[in-house]
Protein backbone atom coordinates (compact mmCIF):
# COMPACT_ATOMS: atom_id res chain seq x y z
CA UNK A 1 0.00 0.00 0.00
CA UNK A 2 1.48 3.33 -1.06
CA UNK A 3 0.96 6.91 0.01
CA UNK A 4 -1.96 8.73 -1.58
CA UNK A 5 -2.05 12.34 -2.73
CA UNK A 6 -5.01 14.42 -3.96
CA UNK A 7 -4.60 15.92 -7.42
CA UNK A 8 -4.81 19.69 -7.91
CA UNK A 9 -7.20 20.56 -10.75
CA UNK A 10 -5.56 19.86 -14.11
CA UNK A 11 -2.16 18.92 -12.67
CA UNK A 12 0.20 16.61 -14.53
CA UNK A 13 2.57 14.11 -12.97
CA UNK A 14 6.33 14.62 -13.43
CA UNK A 15 8.74 11.84 -12.47
CA UNK A 16 12.52 12.19 -12.49
CA UNK A 17 14.85 9.25 -11.89
CA UNK A 18 18.44 8.24 -12.49
CA UNK A 19 18.59 4.45 -12.51
CA UNK A 20 15.25 3.61 -10.95
CA UNK A 21 12.63 1.72 -12.90
CA UNK A 22 9.39 3.69 -13.16
CA UNK A 23 6.01 2.06 -13.59
CA UNK A 24 2.96 4.32 -13.83
CA UNK A 25 -0.45 2.69 -13.94
CA UNK A 26 -3.51 4.60 -15.14
CA UNK A 27 -6.70 3.22 -13.63
CA UNK A 28 -10.14 4.16 -12.37
CA UNK A 29 -9.28 6.37 -9.37
CA UNK A 30 -9.25 10.06 -8.43
CA UNK A 31 -5.93 10.45 -6.60
CA UNK A 32 -2.27 9.53 -7.06
CA UNK A 33 -0.70 6.72 -5.08
CA UNK A 34 3.06 6.18 -4.88
CA UNK A 35 4.87 3.08 -3.74
CA UNK A 36 7.21 2.78 -1.81
CA UNK A 37 5.22 4.91 0.65
CA UNK A 38 8.21 6.88 1.93
CA UNK A 39 8.51 8.68 -1.42
CA UNK A 40 7.13 12.20 -1.56
CA UNK A 41 5.14 13.88 -4.27
CA UNK A 42 5.36 17.67 -4.21
CA UNK A 43 3.04 20.10 -5.92
CA UNK A 44 4.48 23.06 -7.80
CA UNK A 45 3.54 26.50 -6.50
CA UNK A 46 1.05 27.03 -9.30
CA UNK A 47 -0.45 23.56 -8.74
CA UNK A 48 0.11 22.51 -12.32
CA UNK A 49 2.72 19.84 -11.62
CA UNK A 50 2.95 16.98 -9.12
CA UNK A 51 6.62 16.02 -8.99
CA UNK A 52 8.54 13.13 -7.51
CA UNK A 53 12.21 12.14 -7.79
CA UNK A 54 14.16 8.97 -7.17
CA UNK A 55 17.78 8.10 -7.81
CA UNK A 56 17.72 4.33 -7.64
CA UNK A 57 14.60 3.28 -5.78
CA UNK A 58 12.09 1.78 -8.18
CA UNK A 59 8.75 3.56 -8.24
CA UNK A 60 5.22 2.36 -8.89
CA UNK A 61 2.70 5.16 -9.21
CA UNK A 62 -1.04 4.82 -9.75
CA UNK A 63 -2.88 7.69 -11.38
CA UNK A 64 -6.37 8.33 -12.77
CA UNK A 65 -7.05 7.28 -16.34
CA UNK A 66 -6.39 10.18 -18.72
CA UNK A 67 -3.80 11.97 -16.55
CA UNK A 68 -0.95 13.78 -18.32
CA UNK A 69 2.42 12.34 -17.37
CA UNK A 70 6.06 13.25 -18.04
CA UNK A 71 9.01 11.10 -17.05
CA UNK A 72 12.76 11.67 -17.34
CA UNK A 73 15.26 8.91 -16.59
CA UNK A 74 18.91 8.13 -17.28
CA UNK A 75 19.10 4.36 -17.28
CA UNK A 76 15.87 3.17 -15.72
CA UNK A 77 13.15 1.59 -17.79
CA UNK A 78 9.96 3.59 -18.03
CA UNK A 79 6.66 1.73 -18.28
CA UNK A 80 3.27 3.39 -18.49
CA UNK A 81 0.33 1.01 -18.30
CA UNK A 82 -3.26 1.97 -19.15
CA UNK A 83 -4.69 5.01 -20.91
CA UNK A 84 -3.16 8.43 -20.32
CA UNK A 85 -3.74 11.98 -21.57
CA UNK A 86 -0.54 13.32 -23.09
CA UNK A 87 2.80 11.67 -22.36
CA UNK A 88 6.36 13.01 -22.52
CA UNK A 89 9.06 10.55 -21.61
CA UNK A 90 12.79 10.27 -22.03
CA UNK A 91 15.42 7.79 -20.96
CA UNK A 92 19.03 7.80 -22.02
CA UNK A 93 19.55 4.04 -22.01
CA UNK A 94 16.34 2.61 -20.62
CA UNK A 95 13.46 1.27 -22.65
CA UNK A 96 10.26 3.31 -22.73
CA UNK A 97 6.93 1.52 -23.01
CA UNK A 98 3.74 3.53 -23.18
CA UNK A 99 0.26 2.06 -23.10
CA UNK A 100 -2.44 4.15 -24.74
CA UNK A 101 -2.83 7.92 -24.91
CA UNK A 102 -5.80 10.15 -25.64
CA UNK A 103 -3.43 12.99 -26.46
CA UNK A 104 0.06 13.45 -27.87
CA UNK A 105 3.12 11.37 -27.03
CA UNK A 106 6.74 12.54 -27.22
CA UNK A 107 9.14 9.72 -26.41
CA UNK A 108 12.93 9.89 -26.59
CA UNK A 109 15.75 7.56 -25.83
CA UNK A 110 19.33 7.20 -26.94
CA UNK A 111 19.86 3.46 -26.74
CA UNK A 112 16.54 2.19 -25.46
CA UNK A 113 13.58 0.76 -27.35
CA UNK A 114 10.35 2.72 -27.64
CA UNK A 115 6.93 1.09 -27.64
CA UNK A 116 3.62 2.88 -27.86
CA UNK A 117 0.16 1.33 -27.86
CA UNK A 118 -2.79 3.26 -29.26
CA UNK A 119 -1.92 6.97 -29.53
CA UNK A 120 -5.00 9.12 -30.03
CA UNK A 121 -3.01 12.26 -30.82
CA UNK A 122 0.31 13.03 -32.50
CA UNK A 123 3.34 10.91 -31.74
CA UNK A 124 7.05 11.68 -31.85
CA UNK A 125 9.42 8.83 -31.12
CA UNK A 126 13.15 9.27 -31.35
CA UNK A 127 15.92 6.83 -30.44
CA UNK A 128 19.42 6.23 -31.73
CA UNK A 129 19.84 2.50 -31.42
CA UNK A 130 16.53 1.15 -30.22
CA UNK A 131 13.46 -0.10 -32.05
CA UNK A 132 10.31 1.97 -32.41
CA UNK A 133 7.04 0.10 -32.26
CA UNK A 134 3.69 1.91 -32.27
CA UNK A 135 0.52 -0.15 -32.58
CA UNK A 136 -1.58 2.73 -33.86
CA UNK A 137 -1.10 6.48 -34.15
CA UNK A 138 -4.20 8.41 -35.12
CA UNK A 139 -2.67 11.74 -36.12
CA UNK A 140 0.78 12.99 -37.11
CA UNK A 141 3.71 10.66 -36.53
CA UNK A 142 7.41 11.45 -36.59
CA UNK A 143 9.70 8.52 -35.84
CA UNK A 144 13.48 8.39 -36.05
CA UNK A 145 15.96 5.70 -35.23
CA UNK A 146 19.47 4.91 -36.37
CA UNK A 147 20.01 1.18 -36.11
CA UNK A 148 16.67 -0.01 -34.79
CA UNK A 149 13.66 -1.11 -36.78
CA UNK A 150 10.47 0.92 -37.01
CA UNK A 151 7.05 -0.77 -37.01
CA UNK A 152 4.09 1.56 -36.86
CA UNK A 153 0.38 1.50 -37.58
CA UNK A 154 -1.17 4.78 -38.68
CA UNK A 155 -4.70 6.11 -38.81
CA UNK A 156 -3.92 8.68 -41.48
CA UNK A 157 -5.43 11.73 -39.76
CA UNK A 158 -2.04 13.43 -40.05
CA UNK A 159 1.17 13.08 -42.03
CA UNK A 160 3.77 10.45 -41.24
CA UNK A 161 7.52 10.96 -41.42
CA UNK A 162 9.80 8.09 -40.49
CA UNK A 163 13.57 7.86 -40.85
CA UNK A 164 16.05 5.13 -40.08
CA UNK A 165 19.71 4.80 -40.82
CA UNK A 166 20.05 1.03 -41.04
CA UNK A 167 16.85 -0.33 -39.56
CA UNK A 168 13.85 -1.66 -41.46
CA UNK A 169 10.77 0.59 -41.66
CA UNK A 170 7.28 -0.87 -41.79
CA UNK A 171 4.25 1.42 -41.86
CA UNK A 172 0.79 -0.16 -41.81
CA UNK A 173 -2.07 2.03 -42.96
CA UNK A 174 -5.69 1.81 -41.77
CA UNK A 175 -8.17 0.43 -44.28
CA UNK A 176 -9.93 3.20 -46.17
CA UNK A 177 -7.11 5.75 -45.86
CA UNK A 178 -5.03 6.36 -48.98
CA UNK A 179 -1.65 7.98 -48.42
CA UNK A 180 0.64 9.69 -50.88
CA UNK A 181 3.77 7.63 -50.32
CA UNK A 182 7.31 8.99 -50.65
CA UNK A 183 9.58 6.09 -49.81
CA UNK A 184 13.33 6.30 -50.28
CA UNK A 185 16.28 4.10 -49.39
CA UNK A 186 19.83 4.14 -50.67
CA UNK A 187 20.50 0.42 -50.55
CA UNK A 188 17.41 -1.28 -49.13
CA UNK A 189 14.23 -2.52 -50.77
CA UNK A 190 10.99 -0.52 -51.12
CA UNK A 191 7.50 -2.07 -51.00
CA UNK A 192 4.44 0.11 -51.51
CA UNK A 193 1.42 -2.13 -51.06
CA UNK A 194 -1.01 0.22 -49.34
CA UNK A 195 -3.58 1.75 -51.66
CA UNK A 196 -2.36 5.21 -52.63
CA UNK A 197 -4.17 8.53 -52.84
CA UNK A 198 -4.00 12.01 -51.36
CA UNK A 199 -5.57 11.58 -47.92
CA UNK A 200 -2.27 12.21 -46.17
CA UNK A 201 1.47 11.87 -46.79
CA UNK A 202 3.88 9.19 -45.70
CA UNK A 203 7.58 10.06 -46.00
CA UNK A 204 9.66 7.03 -45.12
CA UNK A 205 13.41 7.18 -45.68
CA UNK A 206 16.28 4.93 -44.79
CA UNK A 207 19.93 4.86 -45.72
CA UNK A 208 20.47 1.10 -45.73
CA UNK A 209 17.24 -0.33 -44.37
CA UNK A 210 14.21 -1.56 -46.28
CA UNK A 211 11.00 0.47 -46.41
CA UNK A 212 7.51 -1.08 -46.52
CA UNK A 213 4.15 0.67 -46.57
CA UNK A 214 1.42 -1.93 -46.20
CA UNK A 215 -2.32 -2.07 -45.51
CA UNK A 216 -3.30 -2.98 -41.96
Amino acid at each position, binding site marked *: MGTRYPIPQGARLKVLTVSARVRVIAEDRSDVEIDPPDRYIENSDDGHVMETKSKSTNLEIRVPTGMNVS*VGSVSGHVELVGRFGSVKASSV*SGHVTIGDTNGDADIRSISGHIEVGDCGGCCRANT*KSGHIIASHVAHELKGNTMSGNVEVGVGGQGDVEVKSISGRITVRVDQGRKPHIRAKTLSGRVRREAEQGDDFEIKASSISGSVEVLPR
Partner: protein
Amino acid sequence: MTSATATRVRTVEGAIAFTDLSGFTEFCAIKGDEAAVELITMNEQILRAEIGRRGRIVKNLGDGFLLFFGDPCDAVQAALALQDTFEEASVSGDFPLWVRIGIHFGAPVRHGRDLVGHDVNVAARIVDLAAPGEVLVSEACTGKMSRAIPGVSFEEVGPVIMKGIPEAITLYRAMRA
Protein backbone atom coordinates in the same frame (compact mmCIF):
# COMPACT_ATOMS: atom_id res chain seq x y z
CA MET B 1 59.41 27.87 -1.25
CA THR B 2 56.71 26.86 -3.61
CA SER B 3 55.37 28.82 -6.50
CA ALA B 4 51.82 28.44 -7.64
CA THR B 5 50.84 29.28 -11.17
CA ALA B 6 47.32 30.59 -11.27
CA THR B 7 45.50 29.57 -14.45
CA ARG B 8 43.46 32.47 -15.64
CA VAL B 9 40.12 31.23 -16.92
CA ARG B 10 38.37 33.37 -19.50
CA THR B 11 34.71 32.65 -20.03
CA VAL B 12 32.36 33.94 -22.67
CA GLU B 13 28.58 34.02 -22.29
CA GLY B 14 26.36 32.90 -25.13
CA ALA B 15 24.56 30.10 -26.92
CA ILE B 16 26.47 26.91 -27.64
CA ALA B 17 25.14 24.75 -30.47
CA PHE B 18 26.11 21.34 -31.72
CA THR B 19 25.11 19.97 -35.11
CA ASP B 20 25.34 16.28 -35.97
CA LEU B 21 24.93 14.70 -39.38
CA SER B 22 23.05 11.43 -38.81
CA GLY B 23 23.98 8.30 -40.71
CA PHE B 24 27.27 9.55 -42.05
CA THR B 25 29.07 6.25 -41.34
CA GLU B 26 26.42 4.22 -43.18
CA PHE B 27 26.40 6.72 -46.04
CA CYS B 28 30.18 6.32 -46.43
CA ALA B 29 29.86 2.55 -46.42
CA ILE B 30 27.20 2.54 -49.14
CA LYS B 31 28.17 5.45 -51.36
CA GLY B 32 31.92 5.47 -50.90
CA ASP B 33 34.40 8.07 -49.72
CA GLU B 34 34.02 10.41 -52.68
CA ALA B 35 30.30 10.83 -52.10
CA ALA B 36 30.95 11.12 -48.37
CA VAL B 37 33.33 14.02 -48.93
CA GLU B 38 30.72 15.64 -51.18
CA LEU B 39 28.12 15.23 -48.41
CA ILE B 40 30.21 16.79 -45.65
CA THR B 41 31.31 19.57 -47.99
CA MET B 42 27.66 20.34 -48.75
CA ASN B 43 26.92 20.25 -45.02
CA GLU B 44 29.70 22.73 -44.32
CA GLN B 45 28.80 25.06 -47.20
CA ILE B 46 25.18 25.28 -46.09
CA LEU B 47 26.26 25.84 -42.52
CA ARG B 48 28.73 28.60 -43.34
CA ALA B 49 26.17 30.36 -45.54
CA GLU B 50 23.43 30.26 -42.91
CA ILE B 51 25.58 31.14 -39.91
CA GLY B 52 27.03 34.18 -41.67
CA ARG B 53 28.07 36.77 -39.14
CA ARG B 54 25.47 35.76 -36.60
CA GLY B 55 27.79 33.29 -34.95
CA ARG B 56 31.06 31.47 -35.37
CA ILE B 57 32.18 27.94 -36.10
CA VAL B 58 34.25 26.93 -33.10
CA LYS B 59 35.19 23.46 -34.27
CA ASN B 60 34.64 21.11 -37.17
CA LEU B 61 33.88 17.67 -35.72
CA GLY B 62 33.87 15.81 -39.03
CA ASP B 63 30.17 15.01 -39.29
CA GLY B 64 29.14 17.91 -37.11
CA PHE B 65 30.10 21.32 -35.79
CA LEU B 66 30.40 23.18 -32.52
CA LEU B 67 28.99 26.69 -32.98
CA PHE B 68 28.82 29.75 -30.75
CA PHE B 69 26.45 32.71 -30.82
CA GLY B 70 26.49 35.76 -28.59
CA ASP B 71 22.73 36.14 -28.93
CA PRO B 72 20.55 33.05 -28.26
CA CYS B 73 17.88 34.38 -30.65
CA ASP B 74 20.47 34.35 -33.44
CA ALA B 75 21.35 30.77 -32.55
CA VAL B 76 17.74 29.60 -32.84
CA GLN B 77 17.09 31.54 -36.05
CA ALA B 78 20.26 30.19 -37.64
CA ALA B 79 19.47 26.63 -36.53
CA LEU B 80 15.97 26.73 -38.02
CA ALA B 81 17.26 28.29 -41.24
CA LEU B 82 19.84 25.49 -41.40
CA GLN B 83 17.19 22.82 -41.00
CA ASP B 84 15.04 24.42 -43.73
CA THR B 85 17.98 24.39 -46.12
CA PHE B 86 19.06 20.85 -45.17
CA GLU B 87 15.49 19.64 -45.76
CA GLU B 88 15.33 21.29 -49.21
CA ALA B 89 18.70 19.82 -50.16
CA SER B 90 17.68 16.35 -48.96
CA VAL B 91 14.41 16.37 -50.87
CA SER B 92 15.88 17.67 -54.11
CA GLY B 93 19.07 15.62 -54.09
CA ASP B 94 20.43 12.18 -53.33
CA PHE B 95 22.15 13.24 -50.16
CA PRO B 96 20.42 12.63 -46.83
CA LEU B 97 21.32 15.78 -44.90
CA TRP B 98 19.68 14.58 -41.70
CA VAL B 99 21.08 16.96 -39.17
CA ARG B 100 20.28 17.18 -35.48
CA ILE B 101 20.85 20.42 -33.60
CA GLY B 102 21.04 21.06 -29.84
CA ILE B 103 21.43 24.51 -28.25
CA HIS B 104 22.27 25.49 -24.67
CA PHE B 105 23.12 28.84 -23.09
CA GLY B 106 26.01 29.24 -20.69
CA ALA B 107 29.47 30.56 -20.01
CA PRO B 108 32.01 28.17 -21.52
CA VAL B 109 35.71 28.63 -20.99
CA ARG B 110 37.87 29.81 -23.88
CA HIS B 111 40.69 27.42 -24.64
CA GLY B 112 42.49 28.99 -27.55
CA ARG B 113 39.82 29.14 -30.26
CA ASP B 114 38.01 26.23 -28.68
CA LEU B 115 35.33 26.31 -25.98
CA VAL B 116 35.24 23.84 -23.12
CA GLY B 117 33.40 23.27 -19.87
CA HIS B 118 30.15 22.06 -18.35
CA ASP B 119 27.88 24.09 -20.64
CA VAL B 120 29.57 22.67 -23.73
CA ASN B 121 29.00 19.17 -22.33
CA VAL B 122 25.32 19.94 -21.73
CA ALA B 123 24.92 21.17 -25.31
CA ALA B 124 26.57 17.96 -26.55
CA ARG B 125 24.09 15.88 -24.54
CA ILE B 126 21.14 17.84 -25.92
CA VAL B 127 22.03 17.11 -29.53
CA ASP B 128 22.06 13.39 -28.65
CA LEU B 129 18.34 13.61 -27.86
CA ALA B 130 17.37 15.60 -30.95
CA ALA B 131 15.82 13.93 -33.94
CA PRO B 132 17.13 14.53 -37.47
CA GLY B 133 15.66 17.80 -38.69
CA GLU B 134 14.95 18.96 -35.15
CA VAL B 135 16.26 21.87 -33.10
CA LEU B 136 16.23 21.24 -29.34
CA VAL B 137 16.84 24.18 -27.03
CA SER B 138 17.46 24.14 -23.28
CA GLU B 139 15.37 26.20 -20.88
CA ALA B 140 18.57 28.10 -19.99
CA CYS B 141 18.67 29.27 -23.60
CA THR B 142 14.99 30.15 -24.03
CA GLY B 143 15.17 32.00 -20.70
CA LYS B 144 17.93 34.24 -22.06
CA MET B 145 16.05 35.32 -25.16
CA SER B 146 15.53 39.03 -24.94
CA ARG B 147 12.89 39.14 -27.65
CA ALA B 148 10.29 36.96 -29.28
CA ILE B 149 11.42 35.57 -32.62
CA PRO B 150 8.75 36.25 -35.24
CA GLY B 151 7.35 33.05 -36.72
CA VAL B 152 9.06 30.79 -34.18
CA SER B 153 7.43 28.89 -31.34
CA PHE B 154 8.73 26.55 -28.66
CA GLU B 155 7.11 23.36 -27.49
CA GLU B 156 8.18 21.69 -24.26
CA VAL B 157 9.65 18.26 -24.83
CA GLY B 158 9.58 17.28 -21.18
CA PRO B 159 12.04 16.77 -18.38
CA VAL B 160 15.31 15.21 -19.39
CA ILE B 161 17.96 13.77 -17.13
CA MET B 162 21.29 13.37 -18.84
CA LYS B 163 24.17 11.11 -17.97
CA GLY B 164 26.71 12.99 -15.87
CA ILE B 165 24.54 16.11 -15.52
CA PRO B 166 23.14 16.25 -11.97
CA GLU B 167 20.01 18.34 -12.53
CA ALA B 168 17.06 17.65 -14.80
CA ILE B 169 16.95 19.92 -17.82
CA THR B 170 13.78 21.04 -19.52
CA LEU B 171 14.08 21.03 -23.28
CA TYR B 172 12.02 22.77 -25.92
CA ARG B 173 11.62 22.04 -29.59
CA ALA B 174 12.03 25.20 -31.69
CA MET B 175 9.57 25.23 -34.58
CA ARG B 176 8.30 27.42 -37.35
CA ALA B 177 4.97 28.71 -36.02
